[in-house]
């Protein structure tokens, strides 16, 4: 069985604003990206503005039990459900599947700093660590950190209580989430899946992990596809991106509007020898006719950028490459879902008839999705 898969809901939240509108404007060049150079200097960041979380997460008690990455994700998931016109359909949400691409582990930075300071002079560091963790860790922080608790909070807040899976693994988790969701719907294993991810860029613990690997850009923000060995790396952004994917027949049956068709999603994991990324993306694209829109979920890491560019020049000669990271910052797990969301929104807005979305993880994983106008 192979069924057509359509996108019936798009939920986007980023530094640009919420909903597809501001993101289309940014893609059209009518809205400037928001970049904060100072707060996390020398690391530029696309910060989330003020969000009225009450609009998607009515209970303050729910909001309090989440760290920002979860709130961003739950909010964007709510936008996607609204966009799909399914928010108030309790029965449909009871059956709806969820696949989330998640990171996790937001640290309490102040507590970590105090403990690390104390450890330097502690007579017995192990005992000191136990004492401090017992007294300083908030019990609920654990749940705010657990990777699968974004999905858990989506069930609690939005009542989406079908099968629920959480994928981890940085950018590729976002690619695989959409790939598996597409495959399951196409094969008749599910009719409707809420899929996406979120990333909170305004946290030094994640910057620390990426800086250890030397993959953060510092100083001036240059366009993703002009980044090179001398000035490359990630400029991260806080983003929530969810899609409602649905079998075309079931979407039609409930009278839902297909915002775009998701034709194919492919993923690979090369060994990253020279030329591997280009070969993998080119192979995943297959033969294309016409001139597609191209949206890239690129991280901005120099070694990947050059190979992705070479692949895109072969796949879609002459097409302008739109880097989602240039608009809203690189959103790691949410980067690919956000890029697919943007491509779908642009197709629906009449900016093209087909689109190619590429994802190249900063350390691993390659992915490619093809969309067309519904």
């Amino acid at each position, binding site marked *: 069985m192979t069924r057509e898969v359509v996108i019936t809901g798009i939920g986007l939240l980023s530094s640009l604003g919420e909903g597809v509108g501001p993101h289309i404007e940014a893609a059209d060049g009518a809205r400037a990206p928001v970049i904060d150079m100072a707060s996390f200097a020398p690391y530029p960041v696309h910060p989330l503005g003020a969000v009225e979380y009450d609009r998607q997460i009515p209970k303050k008690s729910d909001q309090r039990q989440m760290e920002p990455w979860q709130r961003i994700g739950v909010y964007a998931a709510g936008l996607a459900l609204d966009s799909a016109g399914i928010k108030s359909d309790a029965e449909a949400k009871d059956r709806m599947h969820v696949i989330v691409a998640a990171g996790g582990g937001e640290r309490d930075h102040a507590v970590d700093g105090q403990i690390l*300071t104390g450890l330097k002079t502690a007579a017995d560091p192990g005992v000191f660590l136990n004492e401090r963790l017992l007294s300083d860790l908030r019990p609920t922080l654990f749940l705010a950190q657990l990777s699968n*608790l974004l999905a858990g909070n989506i069930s609690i807040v939005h009542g989406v209580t079908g099968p629920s899976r959480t994928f981890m693994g940085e950018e590729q988790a976002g690619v695989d989430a959409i790939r598996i969701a597409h495959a399951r719907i196409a094969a008749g294993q599910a009719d409707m899946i809420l899929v996406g991810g979120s990333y909170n860029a305004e946290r030094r613990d994640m910057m620390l992990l990426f800086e250890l690997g030397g993959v953060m850009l510092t100083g001036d923000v240059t366009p993703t596809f002009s980044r090179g060995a001398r000035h490359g790396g990630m400029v991260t952004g806080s983003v929530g991106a969810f899609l409602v994917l649905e079998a075309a027949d079931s979407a039609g049956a409930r009278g839902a509007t297909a915002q775009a068709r998701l034709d194919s999603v492919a993923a690979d994991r090369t060994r990253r020898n020279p030329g591997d990324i280009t070969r993998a993306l080119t192979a995943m694209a297959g033969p294309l006719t016409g001139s597609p829109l191209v949206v890239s979920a690129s991280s901005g890491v120099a070694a990947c950028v050059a190979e992705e560019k070479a692949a895109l020049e072969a796949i879609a000669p002459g097409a302008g490459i739109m880097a989602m990271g240039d608009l809203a910052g690189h959103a790691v797990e949410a980067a690919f879902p956000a890029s697919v969301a943007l491509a779908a929104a642009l197709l629906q807005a009449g900016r093209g008839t087909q689109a190619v979305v590429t994802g190249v*993880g900063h350390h691993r994983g390659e992915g490619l999705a093809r969309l067309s106008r519904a």
Partner: protein
Amino acid sequence: MRSAYLDASGRPLVAVTGLGVVTSLGRGKADNWSRLTVGQSGIHRITRFPTEGLRTTIAGTVDDLFDRSFAAPELSEKLALIAAEEAVAQSGLGRPGDFPGPLFMAVPPVELEWVQKQELAASSNGDVTYQALLADAARHRHTDYHAMFLFGSVADHIADHFGTKGSPISLSTACSSGATAIQMGVEAIRRGDTEAALCIGTDGSVQAESLIRFSLLSALSTQNDPPTAASKPFSKNRDGFVMGEGGAALVLESYESARRRGAAILGFVLGCGEKGDGFHRTRSSPDGRPAIVAMQQALADAGLKPDQIDYVNAHGTSTPENDKMEAMSCTAVFGERMGRLPISSNKSMVGHTLTAAGAVEAVFSLLTIAHGRIPPTINYREPDPNIPLDVVPNVARDAAVRRVISNSFGFGGQNTCLVFADSPA
């Protein structure tokens, strides 16, 4: 394709052709099975880190795999490797370094640990801040930390080692993760995406901070003396779970492929059921509906009626809440027969292996079928009058077991149930 290779719904039947396991009871199926069926506990006092001041000082850690200090992802990877080596070798599938299918892997979430942060803090004077850690990180003297603490790295290394195909999936559904990995393998084979899949659950994350986090949620047993008696699922005096470590791997293969190459078939995964619970972050719906629906869906997916199940491999964590909810849900699914249907918890002996549990218990479920012997629920001294079930108390029992349902329930409302059997029908 001949219809003998399809299930009642016309989907490819999924056979199991390789199994591997490592827990605190030992390395490999033989050691684990012999200890599990004599009712031996793998729970012991923690020596990996100081336990002064902690209310819980015991766990089912897997020790002695490293002769140096190590991070949780390193141990998780090692446990996965040991289990998968055993499973892949048994299956005889592919060639070394060339496994002909994808990898679905349940891995615990990872993050930089205190050791690494202390190393980065060493160069800072005065109060340590994340800005100071970042300044040290920017000197790029510890680039290995980056890859070690990426969420995708454990699966990456396993994929490289076994030569699995495509993009490996690292997944987490909390305490049902191991079952989810198997479920995803079943779904891929049923879709016809692949003839085989390597499904792994692993967890080597018993560290001071992880233990304290569970402790702060009042989830752990504090009855440390003796350690072997702490995990007592379904008992009246149960007071929480005991953290465990382990790894388990299953080679899943389409029945047709397994038969075609003459592989020994160790059993079948006949059905998977899954239902989310939106009630609470850590507590189950009081009516047990999500767990009930997950079990019913697993049975329906397998094309079976409740009375065709011979044994329930319980989630059975030994927390007051889980065991009560599970017993109630099982009774709702299996009716008055539940009083006679054997149900036992492997966690009474290996503890709660968390991310690995669903896979570890899948291996034990298939061994139960193969050996016709049900592992006991040990430490069952004080029956809970509210749980009037046959928990196979304290002593293993010989029984013809053809079909097993294995339950996995996790934080975040995750409920996943799998049905294993000796034959397709």
